[in-house]
């Protein structure tokens, strides 16, 4: 980008936003525990619907499924020795996505811009969601509000033009919230299984 610009964005408090690593309990799920049947079904439906609106390019509908305080995080995954204390990913490092809602809205605006030449003809996308595991959190901060830790696998397939294709597998950990009669995605951490990204870019959400 080599052009002069006069931006007028609000001063967003990026650095003190909670990171997904924090609030989401990472302890192993109990065998027979887990959420009630209607909750599971509702969450499955929520994730399948999310996948479908993304496949259909209906990004407006997608934004409406996100909580105002969403943190959407897809770190870059490094090759490090198993015993390396730094770990393969972490907050504060380069990431594919490390977004709040304002950032996600900018990305969606760009996807929807008529001048996004590289999306015309559109990319054909499929978001395969599997291995959904739902676990209630202990948070009972509000009467009419419940939050669930939801783990799933996302297999992303993209095909463009005549024969370009890309396939990525990721593990997702979400915090999904039920509030005021609506389900919303409040946190998402996406762990990609690729180190060198085996595609020219990531023109999709996970």
């Amino acid at each position: 980008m080599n052009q002069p610009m006069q931006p007028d964005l609000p001063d967003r408090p990026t650095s003190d936003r909670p990171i997904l690593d924090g609030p989401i309990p990472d302890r192993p799920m109990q065998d027979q525990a887990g959420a009630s049947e209607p909750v599971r079904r509702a969450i499955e439906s929520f994730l399948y619907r999310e996948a479908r609106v993304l496949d259909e390019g209906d990004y407006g509908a997608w934004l409406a499924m996100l909580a105002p305080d969403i943190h959407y995080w897809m770190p870059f995954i490094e090759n490090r020795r198993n015993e390396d204390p730094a770990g393969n990913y972490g907050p504060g490092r380069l990431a594919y996505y490390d977004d709040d809602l304002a950032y996600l809205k900018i990305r969606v605006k760009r996807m929807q811009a008529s001048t996004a030449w590289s999306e015309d003809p559109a990319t054909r996308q499929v978001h395969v969601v599997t291995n959904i595991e739902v676990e209630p959190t202990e948070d009972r901060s509000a009467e009419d509000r419940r939050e669930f830790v939801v783990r799933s696998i996302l297999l992303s397939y993209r095909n463009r033009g005549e024969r370009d294709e890309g396939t990525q597998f990721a593990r997702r950990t979400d915090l999904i919230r039920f509030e005021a009669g609506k389900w919303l995605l409040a946190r998402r951490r996406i762990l990609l299984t690729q180190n060198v990204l085996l595609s020219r870019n990531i023109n999709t959400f996970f």
Partner: protein
Amino acid sequence: MAILETDNRPQAGANFTALIGEESQWTDRRIFLDEEIYQLELDQIFRRCWLFVAHESQIPEPGDFVSSYMGEDSVLIVRQADQSIVVLINTCPHRGNRVCHAESGKVRSFICNYHGWSFGRDGKFLGAHQQDAYDASRDFCQDRGQLNMPSAARVDSYKGLVFAIFDPDAPSLQDYLGDFCWYLDALLDNDEGGTEFFPGCYKYLVETNWKTPVENTSGDALHAGWTHASGPEALFGRAVAPDKGEHSYHVNQNGHCWQFNLDYPLGNAAALGEKRVLNYLRERNDQVVERLGEVRAKIMNAISCILIFPNLGILPGSMNFRVYHPRGPNKIEVHSWGLVNQNAPPDVKEAYRKGGMITFGPAGIFELDDGENWEFVNRASRGQQARRAPLYLGVGLGSEIEDANIPGHVSQGQMNEANQRSFFRHWADMMAAEDWTQVPGK
């Protein structure tokens, strides 16, 4: 068989100029497609030029290392006990195995997985599993000295940027960069604390020839307003005003290129859409003027893009550094990082980290629009008939000027292909030169 002959370099004087034209105004598409040309580039350019391999901040302590590539050679950049830096080729002198599979970390020594040879942080052979058997072998005493990991001939840094080179007869890094040291100071030395890289490195594959993104990053302001129309639309709700060209320049020397203007006080940084960054730059302006002078204070924040020959690109606004590693005539592996002043306040650093991500990360709203063009520049040229059609590179012919305040070869106007022409000119010189004495100083 060719492999049995000792030298596969082309004859001196091979006419590479014929492939780009006298003024580099018409390019032959085959230089982006041909396997033979590509193999020669690895020899003539990637084995003979200074290549960027790391930022010193990535390996602060002894034993810290990061991996990178020099051409197609996997290398390890290792901090030594005396704080010096060694660059090792990541291959074992025994059977050739890759020695280190991590891309980053801290080590006491490197140990090869195959037969357990171990090497010091400097690549020196330390010993092997079953060392007795080696010691008992005839000639081992004398062979032992040849069992170190191969390494770069020289390693040097310029204000945090670490470069390495395979050719022992090349000029020094300082001479290699020439006047571009003066320019680079605008990025690397505008604050006494110096700079650092954010932790991490994006890595991704693009199916194009390495020279395509390189010439783009050398000064392709022409594509910014068109290819990247959607980015500003998303950020600001409208397109950006076109540059008038009066105060904008293409500057180049020895294949290095810098394109910038002097009349937009905050330039590209605006694209990050981060008020904190803009405030930070405004607040520091006086200090920077004092430190570097008026011109470079403007260049620092200018709309601009930079190429350090042969394959380091820099996008100053978002402080994105990137290397286009060659992977055959039709493929590259991009590595990219974010630079920031070490002394910048935490919230400014965080704003830079995120701003770099959303603009020129692999999912960035600007980066998204480049890849397809770069790939189809290559693919659409492969047809038997298409490859015969030369490519036009003539914008700004005749725009050369002289300006005492601006070092290097200068052309006026951002909308120009002067830098690109100078890149291909230097490319042809390097391809034809038998050794560094034959490379014309430019």
